């Protein structure tokens, strides 16, 4: 099933507690997917890049005697490789042993950096961006929010996902959102099933794109990245995707200053939209949006095959 949600504030600066709002919506969607929860939230851009990466799965900690030493080695190797490429590490944070956040200064090739770091066994870059913070882990929104300190995250917009695993494992690798590697600040969440995943994945891999999981949803992120690398804007890429993707889906994409939504031509997956002059909130169910208001709101369902993009 899975639940997705998104919110974007217009002209609100960076003063809105996006972390708290996203948690509120995602927790209301817990019944649609209790396996994992993920956020792509957009905060202040101070000119540096934020790199979110993991060096192991949470479950690995219980399955191996030497995992702790391996994690230390992997982190050291990440530091070494970043420095080799000329990236200056300004700040290091970690919510737990396996999940890390680095703030870096880097003006080189982002794809090369991502590939070089991910070449280390067990290391996966979750996101790179100037304002994007991509956080995902097992558990519901309350658990993940608390673990990663999202209750006080100010920003302009965000998307999120509660996952019910149907076609791939319950792990961080298969959790949403997916970063549109190697594009800075682009992330995707998806509810549905893509039936032409393998065919299209093979074609994109032949073009040099990388897939980090076997989750069909990752195809959307890679496809959007591919289109944008050819010069498409977000809306055009999303409109093309409605024809390109086969199956039933509703997905959200966020960039540094945009939030987009696309729905398949059969409208088989739900999406409810609230739109006002100040903000747009979207979710698989209205009950999630309703947690943000203490009064009645007007909402609507997007049409089949519809693509909408909002700017903050």
């Amino acid at each position, binding site marked *: 099933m899975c639940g997705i949600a998104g919110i974007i504030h217009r002209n609100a600066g960076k003063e809105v507690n996006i972390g708290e709002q996203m948690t509120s919506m995602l927790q209301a969607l817990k019944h649609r997917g209790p396996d994992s929860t993920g956020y792509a939230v957009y905060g202040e851009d101070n000119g540096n890049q934020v790199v979110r990466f993991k060096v192991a799965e949470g479950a690995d900690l219980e399955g191996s005697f030497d995992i702790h030493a391996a994690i230390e080695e992997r982190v050291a190797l990440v530091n070494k490789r970043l420095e080799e490429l000329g990236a200056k590490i300004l700040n290091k944070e970690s919510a737990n042993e396996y999940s890390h956040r680095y703030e870096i200064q880097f003006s080189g090739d982002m794809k090369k950096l991502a590939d070089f770091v991910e070449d280390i066994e067990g290391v996966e870059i979750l996101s790179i961006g100037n304002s994007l913070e991509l956080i995902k882990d097992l558990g519901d929104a309350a658990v993940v929010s608390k673990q990663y300190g999202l209750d006080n995250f100010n920003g302009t917009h965000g998307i999120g996902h509660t996952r019910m695993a149907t076609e791939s494992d319950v792990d961080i690798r298969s959790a949403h959102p997916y970063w549109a590697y190697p594009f800075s600040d682009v992330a995707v969440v998806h509810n549905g099933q893509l039936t032409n995943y393998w065919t299209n994945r093979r074609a994109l891999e032949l073009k040099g794109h990388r897939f980090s999981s076997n989750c069909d949803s990752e195809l959307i992120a890679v496809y959007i990245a591919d289109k944008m690398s050819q010069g498409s804007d977000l809306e055009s890429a999303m409109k093309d995707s409605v024809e390109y993707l086969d199956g039933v889906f509703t997905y959200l994409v966020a960039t540094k200053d945009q939030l987009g939504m696309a729905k398949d031509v059969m*409208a088989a997956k*739900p999406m409810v939209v609230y739109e006002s002059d100040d903000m747009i909130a979207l979710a698989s169910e209205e*009950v999630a949006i309703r947690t943000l208001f203490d009064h009645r709101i007007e909402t609507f369902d997007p*049409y089949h095959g519809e693509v909408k993009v909002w700017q903050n």
Partner: protein
Amino acid sequence: MAELKKEKAQEMGLHDEQLKGRTQQRFFSIDESENLTYFHSHEVDTSKSAKIDAQDMTPREINREIRALMEKGIGDITVDNPMSRHGVGVGILNRLNLKFTDSLGYFGCGLIDGPNVHIEGRVGWSCAENMMAGTVVIEGNAGSTFGAAIRGGDLVCKGDVGARTGIDQKGGTIIVGGRTGAFSGFMMQRGRMIICGDAGMNLGDSMYDGTIYVGGEVEELGVDCVPGEMTELDIRYLSEKLAIYGIKTPKGVEKMQKYVSGKMLWNYASLEPNEKKLIL
């Protein structure tokens, strides 16, 4: 293969009577009082009113409270703050004036037989699924599978609705004040659907009876759905029916287009009208 003895088959729960259509005769007992009344149907007085504040209630608690009030004979109930919760107002099998002053989530007012429901907000997917009788009027928009498999009553949405409106509709009337999404009227078997705005692709796909009226543009007709001839009777029916709910079509009912099934299923077409009623 050895033949399975009838007694043994029945011990295993394989009652061959069910296959022959004699289930009611076989299992009905005059000594069981519930067989003589409509289960969970209540005698209510619509002059007696009550309010429920559902702000901090679960869907189950809201439904239980509605039932408890009906058991007391209260026939006019207002529910404040349902907060878009799912599965609220379901399984009501008697006359009742029921009002929600906010939106409902999925499966709102499903499996009902008789109440008049007024919803001031929006409804999520599958509103009034399997409705048998009564009216449900929604002031806002509605999600997909609106009025799935309804058999009777009037289901009215004054705004727009999602995809698959009236899928498997078996009777009653669905009225949409705005537009409706793809596959509306899919496998429609009986009843009427009135769409005042536009209709999405595959309208009336695989329908084999019933009538669909559209006031706006149809993106694409589904398989077996064909234009029908509007008659004076259709125009009069539409005028009077829409007037009941204060709904107007952008171009007037005279400009509405009628759609019917272009093909009858062989087994269905060979039945007499009273026999058709039995199979639906």
